[in-house]
């Protein structure tokens, strides 16, 4: 066993005798395209709505609540799906989030929210986690589509324009501070500071 390992180790580090450097470099390059592309394709697949609702937990609870909202259906058909809000778009943070998501696989295996009752019991905890995340990254996932610099306050209702042109522009508040419960139902909000 040890002998065999040692053989492969040496094989790996010895200069190649029969294959040219060109083949090795080109082969490595092409294989790289396939592996890297495959990796990204698989990761992108886990970002689709279809993948998210393939679990009963997601389909029966949060997805049903999303369906009524303007982020799911609206007159122009521009929409946000699960990953648009719950997964960062930038690559580094996306991979970090995907690693965190291994806990969701754990939850799926052990059925932590596989009944409406269990989901209800954890609703506040789950919501608070997302609120914290969006507070920490200045509502990055909102801003991927809702770009503050291009908001026309004159098109907004006076109250919205007032809030956006003061607290939001000054950085005192971020989107999620006011816009909670826009895609899923709110938990029991007792004790939550509302702006």
């Amino acid at each position, binding site marked *: 066993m040890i002998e065999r390992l040692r053989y492969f180790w040496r094989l790996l580090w010895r200069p190649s005798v029969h294959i040219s450097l060109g083949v090795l470099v080109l082969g490595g390059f092409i294989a790289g395209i396939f592996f890297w592309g495959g990796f990204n394709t698989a990761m992108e697949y886990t970002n689709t709505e279809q993948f998210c609702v393939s679990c009963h937990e997601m389909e029966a609870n949060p997805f049903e609540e999303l369906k*009524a*909202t*303007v982020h799911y259906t609206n007159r122009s058909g521009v929409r946000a799906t699960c990953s648009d809000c719950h997964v960062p778009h930038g690559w580094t943070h996306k991979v970090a989030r995907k690693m965190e998501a291994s806990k969701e696989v754990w939850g799926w295996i052990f059925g932590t929210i596989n009944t409406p009752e269990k989901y209800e019991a954890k*609703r506040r905890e789950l919501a608070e986690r997302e609120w914290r995340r969006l507070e920490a990254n200045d509502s990055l996932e909102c801003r991927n589509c809702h770009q503050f610099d291009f908001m026309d306050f004159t098109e907004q209702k*006076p*109250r919205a324009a007032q809030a956006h042109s003061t607290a939001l522009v000054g950085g005192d508040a971020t989107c999620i501070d006011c816009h909670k*419960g*826009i895609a899923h*139902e*709110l*938990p*029991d*909000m007792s004790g939550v500071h*509302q702006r």
Partner: protein
Amino acid sequence: MKWLSSACILLLVAIIGIAVADERPDPPAPDGLRAGGTFSQTLDAPPIARVVEKRGRMERNWPEQPPVIPHSIRDYQVDKRHNRCLDCHSREAAPRAGAPMVSITHFMDRDKQVRAAVSPDRYFCTQCHVEQTDAEPLVQNRFRTVDQVLQDLVREGRR
């Protein structure tokens, strides 16, 4: 000969039967909220009415009329966990939000005792308050506001 005649009769009966079956009756269907047409017709429903968004509040037609909602309330969550309307219309939030506070009657319990928070009796806003749409009335009605009623009384008194 006998089999020929019986075959003829059978054929005749079959043809008449087919003819009768082909003549499917299509009686008129009653008009409901949409036009009925006939039994086999499926007519289009009228288009879904649009919500009327108004700046400011609307006049009440009589003193106790629950004020109508002059804005869209799409996706507003009003349930045991949370009341989205109260995000702006609650006692604490109303001044900052620039929204009218829910009236004092909403804080009374069934014994007219005023409580600190909105009474559960009055918690579900859309039981009385509704948003406005541009829909035509489904049936004509002779509703008159309290002012119109009073004007008519005065005019009759003069006569």
